[in-house]
């Protein structure tokens, strides 16, 4: 058999049938469901009189809408409450395993899946959310789907797809001080652009990627979609197996050993073909953040804001100027020192215990700058509990951060955690689109350590100065 990539192997192993025009019916091992993109799919099943084929391969959780404040109180926003109650009725009717709001296991679907061992290497995993690419860090083929596809998976446990092209992004070398997975991924997106991965599945490889822990790999794969890719992947290795071992829903004992043998067989073969390959050197990447309203608009914290006048394409020039106006920045200004109003540490990109530790290291013994609202939103109830066991909550609270309940929160502002017009936010989330964190809000994407640095200095800051 010809040399195959990790993606090729997972794909081949899940093709039920290939139709004459090249579209495949692809089997789905895990379907993750949340409250925002599922109600119309459940309704579709009901209207067509169809069953949900495999409730035992489906898991639901509430995350997008949920308040991250006191949960003993009822949910204030009526439409959010309705969406959550609708999910609760649907999971009951269709028999879907469900982590409710008050479960200790509740959290962001892309944190909960890996944490519980629901997402495993070698699987096909889908969810009605583009950041499903996160689970690719385990070496699974995981991608976001629309609600019609959610309904399709519910009814058939399959999806209709054409194979993606293969792309490999290598990051070689050793990251310098103050550089985490987030900085690496922002640098990658800056390099290949927000459409750089369109039509491709990106395998992340190279010594800098292999050196990352699972949380770091999840940060990388999470933002594969921001590079336009259908999915991101990291080959499963000992780091992966140790992470998966003993997770609540992972195979146990002999089953685990069988699984590991299978997972090991999935690594890309030597000589396998990649349609596109890009290599970055970790040493070239410094603490990185975005300046504009597209995730590809990145710069190093030591840089100045780019000047549209230096662009030759009129369309690009106009779009850059629009971004500068929206962001309230001036061409040529140093990005470091720009004052921030809000700091958000959370989201499916950066809300795991490892992320919180990085932020706590900077926050320890310091105070949130006057006038800055700084919030920590753990990715799950389990992350929150573990952080409290490690005393991280005390560090954050003593410094003046808010210590909140798990959910998507200010990443997309579907719950009350929102920016007001003109507010500038240092955010560990994944999208800096106009209005993403609230109408008129200005988002700078950066790492947890850089976000904590912004919180304590009150402005965008090179974290290396605080180390």
């Amino acid at each position, binding site marked *: 058999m010809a040399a195959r990539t990790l993606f090729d192997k997972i794909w081949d192993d899940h093709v*039920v*049938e290939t*139709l004459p*025009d*090249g*579209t495949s*019916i692809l*089997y789905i091992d895990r379907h993750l469901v949340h409250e925002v*993109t599922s109600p*119309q799919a459940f*309704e579709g099943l009901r209207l067509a009189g*169809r069953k949900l084929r*495999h409730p*035992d391969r489906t898991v639901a959780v509430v995350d*997008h*809408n949920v308040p991250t404040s006191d949960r003993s109180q009822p949910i204030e926003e009526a*439409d*959010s409450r*309705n*969406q959550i109650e609708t999910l609760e009725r649907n999971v009951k009717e269709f028999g879907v*395993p469900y982590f409710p709001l008050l479960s200790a296991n509740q959290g962001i679907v892309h944190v909960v899946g890996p944490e519980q*061992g*629901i997402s*495993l290497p070698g699987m096909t995993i889908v969810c*009605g*959310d*583009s950041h499903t690419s996160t689970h690719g860090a385990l070496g699974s083929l995981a991608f976001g*789907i*629309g*609600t*019609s*596809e959610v*309904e*399709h998976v519910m*009814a*058939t*446990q*399959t999806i*209709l797809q054409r194979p993606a092209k293969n792309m490999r992004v290598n990051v070689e070398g050793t990251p310098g001080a103050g550089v985490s997975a987030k900085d690496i991924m922002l640098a990658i997106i800056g390099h290949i652009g927000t*459409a750089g991965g*369109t*039509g491709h599945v990106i395998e992340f490889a190279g010594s800098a990627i292999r050196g990352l822990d699972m949380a770091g790999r999840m940060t990388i794969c999470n933002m594969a979609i921001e590079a*336009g890719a259908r999915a991101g992947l990291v080959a499963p290795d000992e780091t992966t197996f140790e992470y998966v071992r003993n997770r609540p*829903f992972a*195979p146990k004992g002999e*089953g685990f050993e069988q699984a590991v043998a299978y997972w090991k067989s999935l690594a890309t073969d030597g000589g396998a073909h990649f349609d596109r390959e890009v290599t970055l050197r970790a040493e070239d990447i410094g603490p990185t953040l975005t300046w504009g309203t*597209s995730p590809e608009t990145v710069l190093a914290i030591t840089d100045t804001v780019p000047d549209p006048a230096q662009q030759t394409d009129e*369309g690009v020039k106009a*779009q850059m100027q629009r971004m500068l106006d929206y962001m309230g920045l001036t061409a040529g200004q140093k990005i470091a020192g720009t004052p921030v109003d809000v700091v958000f540490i959370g989201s499916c990109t950066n809300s795991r215990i490892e992320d919180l530790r990085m932020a706590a290291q900077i926050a320890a013994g310091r105070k949130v700058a006057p006038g800055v609202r700084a919030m920590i939103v753990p990715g799950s109830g389990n992350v929150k509990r573990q952080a409290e066991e490690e005393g991280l909550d005390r560090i954050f609270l003593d410094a003046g951060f808010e210590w909140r309940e798990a959910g998507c929160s200010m990443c*997309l*502002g*579907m719950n009350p955690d929102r920016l007001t*017009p003109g507010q500038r936010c240092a955010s560990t989330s994944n*999208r800096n*689109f*106009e*209005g*993403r964190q609230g*109408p*008129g809000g200005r988002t700078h994407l950066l790492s947890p350590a850089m976000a904590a640095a912004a919180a304590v200095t009150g402005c965008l800051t090179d974290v290396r100065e605080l180390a």
Partner: protein
Amino acid sequence: MEKFVTLSAIAAALPEANIDTDKIIPARFLKTTQRTGLGKHAFDAMRYLPDGTENPDFVLNQQPWRKAEILVTYDNLGCGSSREHAPWALLDFGIRCVIAPSFADIFFNNCFKNGILPIRLPREICDELMGDAQMGSNARLTVDLPRQVVIRPNGEEVPFEIDAFRKHLLLEGLDDIGQTLKHEANITTYEKRQDQAKSWLPTIHFD
């Protein structure tokens, strides 16, 4: 799903790249449990001023483009979130066809599921179609799916590509779940084979 065969309609130009799904429909409008009713919030931030009144400079607030059924944009249309609310909002506004040099993958898929035809055409041709779209009430393009051509106001025909299976579903207005369920026996066979080959693969049950 409504069939898509031919469409002769007003086209509106949105000469921007990377129009993301947050721009098409901001997250705060995703709290519905319906597919319909999102049209009034399509392109909300571009369409309305901060006081809630219409922005007169935005093309979809102007005649004749308030009735546009075709949208022409630049690269990477629909990037960002997987929210199907984006094509639902477009459809509810009245858009049945989107034309761009390139699309984000999930948005591209989502369009087909809702009877919206996404057409990839080179940037130079999109520029020409945008020029056509400026022609006021003459800004009509005709999309002929059976023949796979876009017909410009000057009669010129621009051919486009589409997967045979997707074309079939659009032309017939078919629900693809029904199509896949015709292959149910093969799905069951696959499941039996997988259960044997990967007996370690857990299923999920909560107590």
